[in-house]
Every structure is written in structure tokens, then in C-alpha cells.
């Protein structure tokens, strides 16, 4: 009698959709564990950034942005991003178009090349430019003769950032374009649309969410890049320090509020990136008909 009850209970608990005590416990354990992990690793640092930044009050927080060097760092970062992001967007669209729409020799090689910045340590990417354009580098003497500064100047920072961030747009678009196929473009052509109109009216709207996300990711990385830029910038205060470099300088000088105030800007950027991503996913699921 007892055996029968036990076995039927086990049978019931094994049925999908049935809420037994064990399944509830297991469920909440897993949810709790993952939430706890998330809180410890992601939310706590996030909170720490803002509490430290605002530790001496809102006034102190905003005062830290009034500092001339901090302002210069922010302006430099924005300027770099303003050049790098459009360039990499154009490059990314071209590369994704070539890879998704055409068959050609060396396609896999091109894919590998695009991934290269992911695989290479940012420090190495920076060092490469020093090696090429530094005073003792390959083109160093020529640049010196012509009075062109690359390393420890703006061009170096832009080059290093360009290199580190170029996969983002292409990587986001290639799978999307491959999945969406070429039919709509072909349809537009048979309907009499030119190449430019086809791109603007058909392709671009089709890939817009993927493109926006790629651009945002690219931008986040461009603003937040530390390693490569650190090597080529030379850390000249007010001239060649970007936001991440400036944060390090402030931190090393024990200016915690200042450091974390600038850090909070970069953190906000991350939060915006996440929001856009969720927006994009929501749009994508709506577009696919649900």
C-alpha cells in the first residue's frame, strides 16, 4: 500500500507542468543562484561606481566635470568616437555586404581578418602602431621629416581605436544579412529601383536594428578602449588623455570622486547599450509576426 502511494507520487511529480514541492524548490534555487551571481558580479560594481561618484554629494559630482583636464578628456573621447564610428560603420556595411551577398575567393580569409582585433590583445594593437609610426618605427623618420605627429597625438589614438573597434558593425551585420537573403533586393531591382535606392529603401530598413546595435557597440568600445590607446597616447594631460586614461590618472591621484564621476559616464553608456539591445530584440520579435 505504501509502495503504491510512493510510486504514484513519483509518477505525478514526473509529469510536466505539475507543481510539486521539489520542482518549486529546484526552480527557486536556480533563479536565486543566478540572480545572486548577477548581483555580486554585475550590479554591485555598478552600484559602487555611482555611490562613490556621488559620495560627496551631487554638487561635488558635477564639480568634477568642471575640471579643465576632465573636460578635455571628454571632448577628446567624443571627437575620436565621432571619427571612428562613422568610418567603421561604412567599413562594416561594405564588408558585411561583400561577405553575405557574394561568393569570392578569400572570403574565409576576410572573415578571419575581421575577427583579428578580437583575438589580439589591445596592448599589442597599440604597440603595432608605435612600431610603425613611432620615432624609431618604420615610418618614424619620414614622419619626423615632414613634421607629422602620429604617436602620442590624436592620429595615433584614432588609428588604435579604429583598429580595435572595426569588427563590431561587420560582425553584427553578416549573420543578419545572410539570414535575410537577397530576395527583396532582387525584387526591388526588377521593379526598377537603382542600386542606391535599393540600398536606402530596402536594405537599410531591413538591417536597421542590427546596424544600430552594431554602431552602439562600436561606439561603446571606441569610448571605453583603454589598452591600445594607453600605449599610443603618451598620457599627456589635457591633450592626449581619453576618458578611460583620465579615470586611471585621477584614480592614481586618489581623486576618487572625479575618477568615479567620469567612470559613471562610461557606465551610463553601457546601460544605454543594454537598453538599445533589448529594444532591438523586442522590435525583431515584433517584426517576425508575434
Amino acid at each position: 500500500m505504501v509502495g503504491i502511494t510512493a510510486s504514484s507520487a513519483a509518477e505525478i511529480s514526473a509529469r510536466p507542468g505539475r507543481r510539486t514541492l521539489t520542482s518549486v524548490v529546484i526552480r527557486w534555487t536556480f533563479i536565486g543562484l543566478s540572480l545572486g551571481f548577477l548581483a555580486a558580479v554585475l550590479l554591485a560594481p555598478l552600484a559602487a561606481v555611482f555611490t562613490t561618484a556621488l559620495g560627496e554629494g551631487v554638487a561635488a559630482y558635477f564639480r568634477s566635470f568642471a575640471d579643465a583636464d576632465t573636460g578635455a578628456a571628454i571632448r577628446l573621447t567624443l571627437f575620436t568616437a565621432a571619427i571612428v564610428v562613422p568610418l567603421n560603420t561604412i567599413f562594416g556595411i561594405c564588408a558585411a555586404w561583400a561577405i553575405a551577398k557574394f561568393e569570392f575567393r578569400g572570403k574565409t580569409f576576410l572573415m578571419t581578418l575581421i575577427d583579428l582585433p578580437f583575438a589580439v590583445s589591445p596592448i599589442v594593437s597599440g604597440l603595432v602602431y608605435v612600431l610603425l609610426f613611432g620615432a624609431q618605427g618604420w615610418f618614424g623618420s619620414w614622419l619626423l621629416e615632414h613634421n607629422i605627429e602620429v604617436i602620442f597625438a590624436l592620429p595615433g589614438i584614432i588609428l588604435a581605436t579604429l583598429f580595435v573597434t572595426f569588427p563590431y558593425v561587420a560582425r553584427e551585420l553578416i549573420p543578419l544579412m545572410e539570414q535575410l537573403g537577397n530576395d527583396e533586393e532582387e525584387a526591388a531591382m526588377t521593379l526598377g529601383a537603382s542600386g542606391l535606392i535599393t540600398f536606402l529603401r530596402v536594405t537599410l530598413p531591413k538591417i536597421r536594428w542590427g546596424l544600430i546595435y552594431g554602431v552602439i557597440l562600436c561606439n561603446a568600445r571606441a569610448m571605453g578602449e583603454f589598452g591600445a590607446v594607453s600605449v599610443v597616447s603618451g598620457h599627456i594631460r589635457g591633450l592626449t588623455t581619453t576618458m578611460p586614461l583620465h579615470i586611471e590618472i585621477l584614480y592614481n591621484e586618489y581623486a576618487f570622486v572625479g575618477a568615479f564621476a567620469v567612470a559613471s559616464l562610461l557606465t551610463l553608456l553601457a546601460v544605454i547599450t543594454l537598453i538599445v539591445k533589448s529594444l532591438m530584440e523586442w522590435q525583431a520579435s515584433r517584426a517576425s509576426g508575434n
Partner: protein
Amino acid sequence: MSITLDQVTKQYQGNPVVNDVSLAVAEGEFFVLLGPSGSGKSTLLRAIAGLTAADHGRITLFGRDVTQVSAREREVGFVFQNYALFRHMTVGENIEFALRVRRVKPAERARRRKELLDLIGLPGMDDRLPTQLSGGQQQRVAVARALAHKPKVLLLDEPFGALDAKIREELRRTIRSVQRELGITTILVTHDQEEAFALGDRLGVMNLGRLLETGRPTELYTRPATRFVATFLGAANLLLRREARSGSDLAPARAEGETDSPLRDRRDQEVVAMLRPEEAELAPDRDALLTAFLGYGHVEELQFTGALERLRIRMGTEGAARSSDSRSNEGETSAMPPVWIDVTRTQPEQRAFPLALGQRVAVGTRRIHVLPTPLSSFTACAESRDSAAILMGNPWLVDLTIRMQTRLSAQVEPLVADDGADPVVAPAGVAVVTAGPDCPARVRRLLARGVTPVLCLPEDAAPPSRVIVHFAGQVARRSTLAVTASLLRHVPAEAVFLGILPSDSSERTRTAGLRQLLDVRSEAQAGHGLDVRTELRLGERIEELLRELEAQPGQMLILGLPEPGSLPESFEALLTQSPGWPVLLA
């Protein structure tokens, strides 16, 4: 003619996907291109639209050569299998796209949009997004979109492929009525023969990149010229019919006067006959048949499928039929292989003569259609059983017989005939011999007994990708053309008529030679629907042929004999080369 294709060819990685297709579609005609997947029909359609560039040939739309014109300037409407609607635009914006690109005024656009939505039966759907529509509705919108700029030609690429049966039929009706109403020249591509019959004014059947036959649906169904069309358009039993001197052994003899040539009289004539399952009659006994007697058999399979009953009858050896799809390794004299005949019967026929599995029945034929193909079956002729087996194992030959759904058998006979009466019956159909030093002797012996065509096959012959056709005599004989046409329908290879004139020939001779070559081409096209390129060379014949054949591997030669049964000695050099190439003497 509103759409004219002239020798359109498209290759992918060296393989012809569309192979020398020529076609003319009349104004306002609904033409259906039918073929199995991979037959090149979609590629051809895309070439007409300009979405794929043709490698060779010419495409003309309403008298305007558009071969080099881009898709956007061809002014055709194209409907894709998976709709390809602009997913971020509403139905109305989709339909207006072509007008917007042409900067048509908004009022005119709106008027045209309403007109088209009414035409396809979706009025008031302007503001929906494509994802909010069912598959059938989406395809209707795609048709409306393709018609918006009033193209003169509508091209539909498997438009019903992704739809279920009921919606498919509904949409089929819509497309047919829209096409009638607008009178627009239309080409539709499909693999579904029922769809092709229901829609097409005229059909074209494609296989292996070639356009095999075109014609009205009833013509192609009842009188196909090729094995492929016979079996692809509905079910068909292909039978080999022997016509001996004493008469036919399958059905009442054809007029015996037909076998008039003394050479032909020395062997049985073999033809390929098609019997549709519904044209077979079953009766308990030979005497009860109302139609021509074919043979006795046993019911081996019996299926009830609603309106029709499907039967498979295993024919006994007492009957005279040979199925052309069974292949035997035995010589001619051995027992005939088993033959199956598919039969369908209507309800009244079933009631009149109910059947059970295993029952013995007499099979009669109401209507038999003889295919005009000279390549009926293949017989490997060799001096020993082993060499015959090697010949029969040639992958290309095996592949060819499977494609032709015909029989490949062996016959062992000595190289040189004992003088006087030849004891061995001459093989029917195509004789296959091994190329090499002894080949000319083998060929002579077969030709002397009236056997044509003869295929000389080197042991390591690879499937040819190029077929050279050359006429040894002054004129191109009709039978050579028939053999060429029949073979090329089963070989995915490009073909060329090669004319060779002596290098010291005068300008007039050259012009005449070229004209003769072009005459042959138009005759092949008129008589067999076969389009082949032409080339004229100057030089010594054999040298030029050898040079051409040695230039690249994977070629074969079809050599037109000057008259039945005679091969000029000079041409024997072409059969003995090593490594060699397949040569078909016809």
C-alpha cells in the same frame, strides 16, 4: 513574338545549367516551364528577368534585345517563390514601390493601388504589414506589386511552392484570371505537372538544362517525343517493341512496307512505345479484350485511391512485351526478364471486372504511342563474356541507360563473321563496342548487318561535357540528326555541329559550306527542337577532328555516316586512339 530566347546558355563552375535553350513565347500567351529541381528552369527565368546574366545567347523582349540590359531596365514583373515582399513596408507601400521609383504622382499611385488590390481580391488591405497576412495573401500582394508598373511580361518562379493545396488552387485561379484579364505574356516555372496542365496555354519541359519539348498540354501528354517527357508528365509504361520481318511481337505489325531497305530487313527493328496506365485494358481472357492483346500477367499490387484503382501487373513470359526499364545481363536468347505494367482503372471498370491480388489477367492496350527516338536499347557486343561485362560496367553507359530508362544487355559474338549466313542475330537498338585497335573490324561487322547506331566506347570513357557532331558525307542524314537529338536530351553537355572544308577551298565553297551547316542547324531545330551551335574549320578532315578531340578531355564525337552501313576507311583512325573518346556512328 514577345519573348524570344536564342541559344541561351548559363554555366556554373563549368557545368551547363541552362544549355542552348531557344524559345519563342507569343504575345498574351501563358507559358509554363516544367521540370524537376535542378533542371535549370528557374535559372532560365532569372536570366529572362536579368537577375542572372546569360553566358551565351540572346534574349529579346518585344523585339528589343535585352541581353545586356540590367534587370531594372527590362520592365518585367517578377514573382518570387517566397514572396520577397518588403517586410518593413505596408501592403500599399509595397504595391506602390515601382511607381514611387518612377516618380509617379501620389494621386495616380493611389488610383493604381486600389485598382490592383481589387484585381487580386484584397481590397482595403492597404495598411497591413506583410507579416499580418497569410501566405496566400502575401503572394497575391507580390503579384500586384509585380504588375504595378504595367510590365509587358510577367515571370513567376514557383509562386505556389510554399502554399498548401487548397490555397494553391485558389491562387492558381486568381493568377489565371488576372492573366486573362490583362492579356499579359506570362512565364511560370513549376515542377508540378498538374499545375502546368491547369495553367499553361503551352508547356515547355526542361531536364538537365535542356528544353526538351514544347507544346500544348494535350499534345505533350498524348504524343511526347522523348522518354523524359513521357514519364515526367504523368505515369507511363515504357515498352520496347520489336518489329521482326514477320511482324511486330507487341501489337499488330506496322506496315511491313516500312522495312524496305535491304539492310534494315536483315534485323529486327526496335522502337520505344509508351503505354499510359489508363490506356491499358484488363480482362479475364484474351478473347474478352476489346483492344489489342499485349500479354498475360498477374496482379501483384492493388491500391485503392478513391476515384481510381492503381494496379501493378507482372507480365508473364507468355506475353510478348519487354519492359524497357529492366536490364538483363544475359544474352538475347535467354528468358525474358520480368516486366511490370502499371494500370489505373476507373470505378465502372472495377465494377465490371473486380480483381484480387495474384489473379491472372489478360492485358490489352487501347492506345500505344511510339516515341520517335532511334535510341531504343543498348547491347554490348564483344568477343568474350568478360569484355562484354567490362563494357556494361562503364559508369557513363550505366548512367545513360538509367537516364533513358532503357535496357542494357550483352551479346557475345566472334570478331570476324564465319562466311555465309551469320548465325548470330544482329542486336536491336544501339550496339556498344570497345574502342581500340579491333574497333574498326567490330564496327564493320555490325554495320554490314544493318546495325546502327554503333557506340564505340573506350574502357575508361568519362561522361562527356562536349559533343562534337560531324557528318562524314556531303549531306546530313535525317537519321543522324534524330540520333543526335535523342542522345543530347540525355547528356548534360554542350554540342556543336563541326563542318570542315579543305583549306584551299574558294570563298564560294566556304559560303556554301557555312550555309549548309546553318541549314542542318535549322533542320535539327525544326525537326527535333534541338538547338546546337555551328563551327566551320578549314583543313584536312581527320586531322582537324583529331585536333579538336585531343584539345580537351571529356569530349565525344557523333559521326554521321554518309549512307547507312558504310564507314569511310579514313575515319577509322578516330576509333583506335588511346586514350580515346566515345564515338557514336549514326
